[in-house]
């Protein structure tokens, strides 16, 4: 399988990365080289093979359903580029 320019632009949109036409053009070539490389997996017969879910056989750990941490909203927002009164601030999303 390979990707064309429009697919690359659509995927960039899904990935929320702005690309201009020249960048999308360059990426199309690079992504097709990688997709061509992974194509060799088609040689492998995977009939009846279960997909890997965990490399280590383990039973899911469960913790007590209780609050174990928190109470420091100021620390949570301390690295935000813009914040106000312990809230993250973003451009208006609802008119």
């Amino acid at each position, binding site marked *: *399988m390979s*990707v064309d320019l429009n*697919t*690359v632009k659509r*995927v*960039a949109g*899904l*990935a*929320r*990365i*702005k*690309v201009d036409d020249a960048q999308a053009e360059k*990426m199309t070539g*690079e*992504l097709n*080289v*990688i*997709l061509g*490389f*992974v*194509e*060799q*997996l088609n*040689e*492998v017969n*995977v009939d009846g*093979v*279960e*997909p*890997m*879910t*965990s*490399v*280590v056989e*383990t039973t*899911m*750990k469960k*913790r007590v359903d209780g609050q174990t941490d928190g109470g*420091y909203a100021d*620390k*949570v*927002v*301390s*690295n*935000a*580029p*813009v914040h106000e009164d312990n809230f*993250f601030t*973003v*451009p*208006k*999303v609802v008119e």
Partner: protein
Amino acid sequence: MTDLTKLTIAEARDKLAARDFTATELTESYLGAIETGNEALNAYIAVTGDIAREQAKASDAKIAAGEARPLEGIPLGIKDLYATKGVHTQACSHILDGFKPEYESTVTQNLFDDGAVMLGKLNMDEFAMGSSNETSYYGNVVNPWRRNGSDTALVPGGSSGGSASAVAAHLCAAATASDTGGSIRQPAALTGTVGIKPTYGRCSRWGMVAFASSLDQAGPIGRTVRDNAILLKSMASVDAKDTTSVDAPVPNYEDFIGKSVKGMKIGIPKEYRMDGMPEEIEKLWQQGIAWLKEAGAEIVEISLPHTKYALPAYYIVAPAEASSNLARYDGVRYGLRVPGNDIVEMYENTRAAGFGDEVKRRVMIGTYVLSAGYYDAYYLKAQKVRTLIKQDFDTVWADGVDAILTPTTPDAAFAPGEITDPVTMYMNDVFTVTANMAGVPGISIPAGLNKDGLPLGLQLIGKPFDEGTLFQVGEVIEQAAGRFEPSTNWWSK
């Protein structure tokens, strides 16, 4: 005083205990070495002298009180991927601009609880994506090794290039690193240092900047096998904050050093030969086989039939997980924000400016293979191939093999800019990536020099949670091969 940076961790530990020098003197020696050597190597992107001096002072008090902990006063470099409270933590990406976490990663906390000293944060490929440390926002790291008679700069490998370069150049006693497809073992091989990727789940991933969560694993790079054993003992732990960390006792790995390998079964996989691989890699491998034979090990040829599919499967699984993990960098909660007319444009502008080319490439691949209609053909297929890769290893262990010996990399260090095609660059991990896909441990040990005088490594792959055997067999190779140091310290002005 500069001699103190020549000591291994084991030697420094014993001399500190014997009061031959203080932890403060040891730390000052390393800070001095960084001061004179880091400009040429670009291994550290932040030096934390104040923290180091304070920790060293505390260590001296502990030693004086007879309460020395296992890593008391040992100066370490920390890969920029580990969250260190209040200190530069960006996985060398522009998108985490200015990020200083309010918390400490479990691995670094374990090290500090055992008395280690932090010298600073080490350069790396952006988000650990790279095999040459050329994708860092903070510039290339330079390998202290050069070809004989040449002053051309070489890459240290990646993604833990800063860790490997700093250890090889004696700018720290050892360093933390991380390995998703070979990022500990490949740079260790290219710099003549020792590095181990433990079993998946051996160390907590909490507080490590996530790349591919089912593959990422913390580990050390050091100058000797014993130093790796000492460090892993402190780094490994079960952690309530990482459900994939495994609740299994952490052995005293140092006890495995010096034990005989007589009667051990070492597997040689015939699939670990590549077209165009230099003859000296094959020779090195044969030399490794001969050393282990002389030490009494039994050498058996084995087959890992799905080896060649590990790298293509990796380039589906790792980007898929990366595209999910890196979705969090949106200009809202931390790091860089580039404004836009609305929130979506702000996301797009931020991610366009904040991610480098290689990161964008992998996020794009990951987004594509996970997008509607392609999931089965790519991701599900790759995860099935991964099951087959793990079964290959399980079969070998069931046949009684104790460890597997391979080359670490298909070649020695190269010059920056020499490899421009992404897939050719990815081939650097062809021998290391299988261990990540199967979750098993792997160690790289320097084993010789190529015709240009550059170090080459041999890799040992072990059974899950059998790191002890890797230290045991690894030390036999180290004893036979000797240790390797660059012929001059040209970087120290």
